[in-house]
């Protein structure tokens, strides 16, 4: 104790970018950015439901007809998602172990709850994504959706969505998941800016507000669909039931 000694001499200290704490954070931030872009794009795609059955099904078919685009994107998203989750879990446990004995009395001054629950809101999102894929992409949970076709013979995504959200339980799960997502984003957005170094005293409150604003926009952008279904603003096309 009296002598300052570690296994690593300070002059020799070396950590690779990827393994460093800042590197890990930058991985979180950049993978998060792509996931956020996907979430935004997906929302814009979904909102086409308000333009009618034909528009949404055309969009869905167009994506399907572009395997050269859709598959690389899917694979990349999967990788980003996996890295984001893996790094997130790693950070969570490393940070837990950085304080082996916790305080008997805990207090917080300004860290919002959203920032302290990223691992949980993230876990919520992950669970929902799995369900969502089984529900609408692989149609495992509701195989009857596979038989839905519109008048020109395309897979009737429009009707599938409406069937999906007419189920109140599914809609509630969806809303909870969207809340998790947006709660996650409200910290993720200003945090992203900080991590890539774009923050200062002047921008700190602005970025915080921006985080909330974007989170709210995304929440409404997604939630408006089940809301519209449940309130009969969008209804099944004639002949489908």
């Amino acid at each position: 104790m009296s002598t300052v000694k570690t296994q690593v001499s300070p002059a020799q200290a070396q950590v690779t970018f990827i393994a460093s704490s800042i590197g890990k954070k930058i991985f979180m931030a950049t993978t998060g950015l792509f996931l956020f872009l996907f979430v935004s794009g997906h929302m814009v795609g979904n909102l086409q439901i308000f333009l009618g059955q034909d528009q949404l099904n055309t969009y869905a078919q167009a994506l399907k007809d572009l395997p050269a685009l859709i598959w690389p994107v899917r694979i990349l998203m999967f990788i980003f998602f996996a890295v984001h989750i893996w790094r997130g879990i790693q950070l969570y446990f490393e940070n837990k172990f950085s304080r082996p004995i916790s305080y008997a009395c805990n207090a917080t001054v300004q860290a919002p709850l959203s920032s302290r629950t990223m691992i949980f809101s993230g876990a919520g999102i992950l669970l929902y994504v799995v369900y969502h894929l089984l529900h609408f992409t692989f149609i495992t949970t509701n195989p009857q959706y596979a038989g839905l076709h519109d008048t020109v013979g395309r897979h009737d995504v429009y009707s599938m969505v409406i069937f999906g959200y007419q189920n109140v339980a599914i809609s509630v799960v969806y809303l909870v998941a969207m809340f998790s997502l947006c709660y996650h984003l409200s910290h993720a957005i200003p945090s992203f800016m900080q991590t890539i170094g774009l923050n200062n005293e002047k921008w700190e409150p602005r970025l915080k507000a921006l985080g909330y604003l974007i989170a709210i926009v995304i929440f409404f952008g997604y939630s408006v669909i089940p809301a519209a279904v449940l309130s009969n603003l969008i209804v099944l096309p004639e002949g489908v039931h």
Partner: protein
Amino acid sequence: MNFKLHVWRQKNAAAKGRMEQYEARDINADMSFLEMLDVVNEDLVEKGIDPIHFDHDCREGICGACSLVINGLPHGGMTGTTCEVRMRLFKDGSTIYVEPFRAKAFPVIKDLTVDRTSIDRVMQAGGFVSTHTGAAIDANAILVPKDKAEEAMDAAACIGCGACVAACKNASGMLFVAAKVSQLALLPQGQAERERRVNKMVAMMDIEGFGNCTNYYECEAVCPKDISVKFIAKMNREYMRALVK
């Protein structure tokens, strides 16, 4: 004033510690928190009980030695350091929790005393300008714009107390390291070793077992010298800059 204290007692680094209860009686409202502990200690010694050990020295908020977590917040979460906290800020008759700074990088030595030499080792890795005595040119030959000098001073004001680490939910040392990296990155004197410095200091910080920053900003909230988290953003920038340079 009277208080009920819950204080962490631990005989030495290897021993298991626990919270113990003490009474602080007839406390003057003008006392500092440490003077209150002095009174409690004199009382303990008279009873033949080992007094509560804690680090302290200047007692005026500048040396950075004092290091208590009071009611869950380093330095009580108030203006300045623990030695500047006055008892009038507490409610008479209340219960106060007193714990050591807790982090893997700050092991407890005894009671409330922790080993913060990890901070020194991070400094040893790169928290300096490599200039040997006698090599300096005339001070006015290095011009430093006033705003840069002021900003560097904002960062340099860090007293190395470690409250940022103790406050961080992840026990991260980023604010402390960022303050030094930023101070020297802002000044012309620090340019020659700019990339090397940030690489080395971050590496040593990680090796010492500090946690990762997840942007809670609790560090900034308890910093007795009001160091801004903008310096963490700056260090992140410096680190990326060093990668591509």
